[in-house]
């Protein structure tokens, strides 16, 4: 089961879970994904040790998609 995780004040929250074989779960996950992006979150997927990528569409084949907030210089 793939997960869409948002890093937040609780540590993290699972926003959606889906399996590529379940179209309804996929649709819910895609909608949740877009809502989080609209709220200003950035979606990241790990692409191997030490590598990550920002995604703008929900990658249905990913195990975990992590939502983060923008960073800035202090």
């Amino acid at each position: 089961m793939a997960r869409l995780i948002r890093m937040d004040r609780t540590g993290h929250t699972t926003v959606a879970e889906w399996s590529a074989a379940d179209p309804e779960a996929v649709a819910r996950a895609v909608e949740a994904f877009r809502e989080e992006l609209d709220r200003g979150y950035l979606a990241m997927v790990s692409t191997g040790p030490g590598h990550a990528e920002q995604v703008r569409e929900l990658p249905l084949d990913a195990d975990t998609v992590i939502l983060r907030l923008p960073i800035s210089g202090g």
Partner: protein
Amino acid sequence: MAADPTVVGSRSDGDRETTTALPELATVAWRPRVDAARLDRQDALWTLTTAAHVAPFLLAAAVLVWLEPLLVPVALLCLVHAWAIPALYAQRGANVVRPGPRGAAGPERASVGLLGDLIGHEARALHARTGLVLEPGGLGTWVVGEAGALLVRHGRRRRVACWCVQVREPELPAGDRIAHLLLALRADETGFATVANLAFSGAPWRVRARMRRAQRPALDAARAAARAAGRRAS
């Protein structure tokens, strides 16, 4: 004219549209993208600036004593200034990895769990001891904290650059703060360094002395990794 730092590239991989440039670069569009050559220049400029701050006080101390030995106390004050200026900059550098206040235990534990999923066993063990995450990169070895990161470049273990960069959400637990920086760093290392503000560049011993004792092994590990990378390269 400097190239647009936000343009590195994006691609469509089937149904996955990805981007390799941090979107945060748009907020610092005037900055040229950091690369190894730019880091070299920043290091040199930092050394020159420090020397320009310190040298006049050293010179003044010497001249005062030469003119009038009774002015030794004033000369000593000049020497204190010459010592304090780089020390203050180094303190600013060490502050980028200073741990922030802790929130409730549950969220803190959950955030560390998520962070642990992102890093390997050794990095997890180091984080448990130091609260910092060691992350190898293309520019060097990074030590990522809650509000910034240290960079020891490959083969240059006698210098550390301290970068101030953070996520502006005060209620995030510590592990999430580090995970935010880690994911951004992994997505676009030079973009990460471009977004961050350089707080200090100089001798690691200056920064190490001002870090919390428990954190120091993380900087030591980064220096060891940088030395190993330098040996491999030569």
